[in-house]
């Protein structure tokens, strides 16, 4: 074992009921007292950088004012242009976005919100300003400019252009018009996406930061989200996730390092119209949220978000802290949204004009302009020149964007899936440290269990590629609820195999974020029923980001979900929900029925660059089957004829396959009916061809799954078969599934609830 400590950790919590008090400590508010003059005097900013701050704030305001005016046809450069799309403008919040982004460096990341034009523009501008001449040249590759100054100016204009083009739904937009205003993202500068689900981006940011921690990049994630999001479950789960003790205490072994994330709360005091201050929250300040998640209160502070220098200062400090392993950080940034939630919100139903006027009096741009004049950085003409430059650049970009090409309608679902996978592991990830090798899984007559086949696949892929990490509830010392991961913690250490909070949404959401920054997480949901806890992160995030980003990003994650049907666990631990995931396109869905397929498909799933939901049947975990010693893959999207026959085709997947095979044997023995069994193996992508070939031969088809039949994927298969093979059908396509109800606990009831061989025989005989 040498230097490597066994990662097994035994808790020693003993009863101790001695009275004591908890001191929750204090949260500083508006601690920053600096000014442009003091910052310059201390050498923390120079005149050029100060002008950049003004210019970036102006760029945001100019663009958002364009959105406001273009809607009413009053934006002169685009008179008559019809803008369709959201109008969630952040005018008033420029100081917060620009100050924060100006304190980040190129290798850092942000996530943003539905009100994210400012964050997106600011992140792009600040990142571009930090680029070397080579990086700029790459960014504006069509340019013939030679000086850095020219390249920079072209890159900035291109940035505004691609931003507006995305708002206008154009192919030249950052997301090729697939995302739009609320999903804008530029992964080349670490912008991991604005998110139209309030709070939806926070677990992604957390997972990305967790990934940066694992990769030791020194990068930081600044997670922009509004005050409204901090009432949402997944956001609070994320705070807990990032602050887990195991990342920083002795369990972290050689790398005690806090998750490098800054929760930057854009607290504009209103959710949509719900008032955070005295209506929909019970704390006076959002900052107080941090107290509940970490003993150090996540370094929580309240920051003046109307002062670009205050937000810059805060993020500079936090970013440095994160790079030193002191994350996470929590900033409650006090700012204001001059407009309503959108242009259809008149605002006067829930706040006063006086309140608005008071905030406008501390406008981040005007107050900063005054400081620039006071410090003789720019005089009135100088400021006017900056305004003119920004206005001209934005107008040129807007006109160009309005005239840019729309995406071709034929490409409407292009970018739904990627066809890439990891063929060769880059050398820097091919070196894997093994602490305590796992004893090889014993084969009896060349057979191992379905459970061990999956385990062997994950272990082999973790040995092959250090980007593969594995986490879920109770998967570490305990080895998982079904002992599938037993020994994996000991083998790979806690940095790659760790327990998570009971936090299904975050398990899935952090996997999305980690996958976005280059990891290949394999995560486990103990029961498929819990998938519904993670609905947004699976359906709206994992499944959608490849398409919504216009294929900028791939989300290579494997979501293992285990189906508990048939154990008398009742309605919340027995469901087969793959059909619900199939109905939200964007994620591959695999459901193997044999040990051989399970291993080969799991290995393919981990190497694939699409998000994959890998469904496992607890009823099959102990089923043995032949699994070769040597490496093999089973391709995703290829069905398998498990038994040949000529009279009827039984289409099944998962645990319905052994059921179908048993039925086929009985049909042969009792009625001399020859049944062919087609195992779909993957639902998405669906190999319909194999099914059709079989139906063409037999003329009869029964589609079987363990799921309740209402809304089941079996209906999709049946419908496609009748659509594409109608002339070959000698009888209606039948379906067999669980009763259209809720799985009961009673053994007697459960026995008739799930499909049985008898049900299949009845269905087959009814169409012979």
């Amino acid at each position: 074992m040498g230097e490597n400590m066994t990662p097994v950790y035994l808790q020693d919590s003993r009863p101790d009921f001695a009275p004591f008090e908890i001191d929750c400590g204090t949260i500083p508010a508006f601690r920053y007292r600096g000014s442009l003059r003091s910052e310059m005097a201390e050498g923390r900013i120079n005149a050029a950088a100060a002008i950049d701050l003004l210019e970036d704030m102006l760029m945001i305001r100019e663009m958002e004012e364009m959105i406001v005016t273009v809607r009413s046809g009053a934006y002169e450069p685009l008179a008559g242009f019809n803008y369709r799309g959201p109008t969630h403008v952040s005018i008033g919040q420029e100081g917060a976005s620009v100050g924060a982004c100006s304190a980040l460096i190129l290798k850092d990341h942000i996530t943003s919100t539905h009100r994210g034009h400012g964050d997106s523009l600011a992140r792009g501008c600040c990142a571009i300003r930090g680029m070397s001449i080579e990086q700029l040249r790459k960014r504006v590759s069509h340019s013939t400019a030679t000086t850095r100054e020219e390249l920079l100016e072209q890159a900035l204009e291109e940035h505004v252009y691609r931003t507006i083009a995305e708002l206008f739904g154009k192919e030249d937009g950052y997301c090729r018009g697939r995302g739009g205003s609320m999903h804008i993202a530029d992964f080349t500068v670490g912008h991991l996406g604005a998110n139209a689900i309030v709070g939806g981006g926070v677990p992604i940011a957390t997972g990305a930061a967790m990934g940066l921690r694992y990769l030791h990049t020194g990068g930081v994630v600044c997670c922009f989200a509004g005050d409204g999001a901090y009432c949402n479950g997944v956001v609070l789960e994320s705070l807990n996730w990032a602050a887990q003790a195991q990342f920083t205490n002795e369990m972290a072994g050689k790398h005690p390092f806090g998750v490098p994330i800054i929760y930057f709360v854009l607290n504009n005091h209103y959710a949509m119209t719900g008032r955070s201050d005295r209506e929909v929250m019970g704390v006076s300040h959002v900052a107080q949220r941090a107290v509940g998640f970490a003993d150090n209160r996540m370094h929580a502070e309240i920051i003046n978000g109307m002062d670009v220098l205050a937000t810059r200062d805060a993020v500079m400090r936090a970013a440095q802290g994160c790079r030193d392993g002191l994350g996470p950080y929590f900033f409650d940034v006090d700012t204001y949204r001059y407009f309503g939630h959108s242009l259809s919100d008149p605002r006067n139903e829930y706040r006063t004009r006086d309140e608005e006027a008071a905030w406008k009096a501390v406008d981040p741009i005007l107050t900063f302009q005054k400081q620039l004049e006071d410090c003789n950085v720019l005089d009135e003409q100088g400021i006017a020149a900056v305004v003119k430059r920004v206005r001209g650049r934005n107008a040129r970009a807007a006109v160009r964007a309005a005239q840019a090409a729309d995406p071709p309608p034929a490409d409407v679902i292009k970018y739904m899936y990627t066809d890439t996978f990891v063929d060769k592991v880059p050398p820097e990830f091919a070196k894997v440290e093994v602490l305590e090798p796992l004893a090889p899984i014993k084969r009896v007559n060349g057979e191992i269990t379905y459970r061990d086949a999956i385990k062997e696949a994950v272990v082999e892929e973790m040995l092959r590629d250090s980007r593969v990490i594995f986490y879920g509830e109770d998967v570490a010392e305990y080895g998982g609820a079904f002992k599938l991961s037993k020994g994996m913690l000991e083998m790979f250490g806690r940095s790659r195999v760790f327990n998570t909070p009971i936090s299904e949404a975050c398990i899935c959401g952090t996997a999305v974020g980690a996958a976005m920054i280059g990891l290949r997480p394999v995560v486990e949901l103990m029961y498929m029923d819990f998938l519904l806890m993670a609905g947004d992160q699976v359906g709206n995030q994992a499944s959608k980001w490849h398409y919504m980003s216009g294929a900028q990003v791939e989300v290579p994650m494997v979501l293992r979900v285990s189906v508990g049907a048939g154990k008398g666990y009742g309605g919340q631990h027995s469901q087969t929900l793959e059909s619900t995931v199939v109905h939200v396109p964007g994620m591959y869905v695999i459901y193997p029925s044999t040990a051989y397929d399970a291993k080969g498909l799991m290995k393919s799933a981990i190497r694939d660059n699409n998000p994959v939901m890998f469904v496992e049947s607890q009823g099959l975990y102990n089923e043995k089957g032949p699994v070769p010693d040597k490496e093999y893959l089973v391709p995703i999207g290829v069905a398998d004829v498990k038994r040949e026959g000529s009279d009827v085709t039984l289409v099944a997947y998962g645990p319905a396959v052994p059921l179908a095979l048993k039925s086929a044997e009985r049909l042969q023995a009792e009625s001399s009916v020859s049944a062919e069994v087609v195992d779909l193996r993957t639902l998405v992508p669906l190999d319909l061809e194999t099914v059709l070939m079989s139906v063409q031969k037999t003329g009869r088809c029964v589609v079987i799954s363990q799921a309740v039949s209402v809304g089941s994927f079996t209906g999709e298969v049946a419908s496609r078969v009748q659509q594409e093979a109608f002339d070959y059908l000698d009888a209606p396509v039948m379906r067999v599934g669980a009763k259209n109800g809720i799985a009961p606990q009673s053994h007697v009831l459960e026995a008739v609830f799930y499909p049985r061989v008898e049900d299949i025989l009845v269905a087959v005989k009814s169409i012979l």
Partner: protein
Amino acid sequence: MVKAVTMPKLGQSEETVKIVKWRKQVGDAVAKGEIILEIETDKAVLEVESFFAGTLLKVVAGEGVTVPVQTTVAFIGDPGEAVPDVAPSTTPAATHGPKHESMGPLTRPSPDGHPLPLEREKGLSPLPAERVVPSGGDRVRGSVTSQSSNEGSFQPSASPEVFRISPRALKLAKESAIDPTQIAGTGPGGRIVERDVRDYLEAHGYNRLRITPTAKKLAAREGIDLLSLAGKANGNQITVADIERIVSERPKPLAHIRQIIARRLTESYTHAPHFFVTVSADITEVEALRATLKAQGTAYTVSDFIVKAAAMALEEFPIVNSVSDGEAVRAHSSIDLGLAVALEQGLVVPVIRHANELTLAEIHLRAQDLTARARSGRLMPDEMTCSTFTISNMGMLDVENFTAIINPGESAILAVSSGAKQPVVKNDQVVVRTMMKMTLSSDHRLIDGALAARFLNSIRKHFEEISLWQRLT
């Protein structure tokens, strides 16, 4: 500007007309006056011209649909113009065909003025609710404890007429070019499945048939049962020529106008007991007069003279100008003479109204106009309806004698044959005269032989009375 094409009211009697065929399709350019659709009234098939030029933008009422006159059937305008959303105002089928006035109204007006069917047509009664057994999760009558199966099981009705065949079996039957309706089904519910078709083919020696592949394909396309050809083929092998022969021998639907003729004449010939009386008229002098008049510039036809003569005879015998259904007799108040005109596609009978009040010259002009327009298909329905007596002249077709079938609504018809020179005894001298046979068909329910003879001889008398014609011309 979008213009609505309304169904013209072509006659006094039509309330509804049936659209037979759209000559123009949506998107076609339409010139003003161009024929855009064919319609069928109770009497005839007619063509409808467009009043507007433009593009046919929308067809509101499709082929086979019966619509009230003066309702919108289509829109014409410039391509791309928006078209008002108009529902076709069809009329229930029950109001067509023989009218059942005693049955009371089958329709009631809807708020927008269109008739609404009061009840479904027979044979289309809605499925009784009991037939549908809801699946679990759906509402179940009188019970919330659904024990039903996963599949909502639809119980097919006991109706034995439903022909049930699986798509696979149907495909095989089609590819084999056989008629599957003779096959006994052994699948669930008596459905014919693939094995039934195979068994049937085997049992009927299909596999012993020698069929060329092209013949088989053609037979499948034409829906010809190859088994019906067994033994009938020329030689042992069924070839394309055999199939083509059968196709060519197949009944084809009559033209609409022929169907109308068939219906009307069958009705007349089966309802009215016909009998026939023939006379020979001496037309020598009339022919001479016609030649003289023609030389003077007016080419009267034999028919002109016959019309006038018949009109005069009808004045004398008003009973012939009446109609009976065997129970009552109805006298026509005017003498309107139908003139049968043979067209390529059938027969039309334009009417010379009040023929008894017209001069010969007027009759001539009227007959000439009607005949010409009949030949060019431009008669209006009113000009072809409600004649009271009809003349069918085949004189130009070199026939010695023929009989005609009475037009429905009339009691007699006059069949006029060709004139021919014959030796005739006149004043005990054998002389050569031009003789023409005329045969009157009469409805024996109303007209007896003596009356027919007197009436026919009256026509002959007027026709031969040259002094009369000299006076009239």
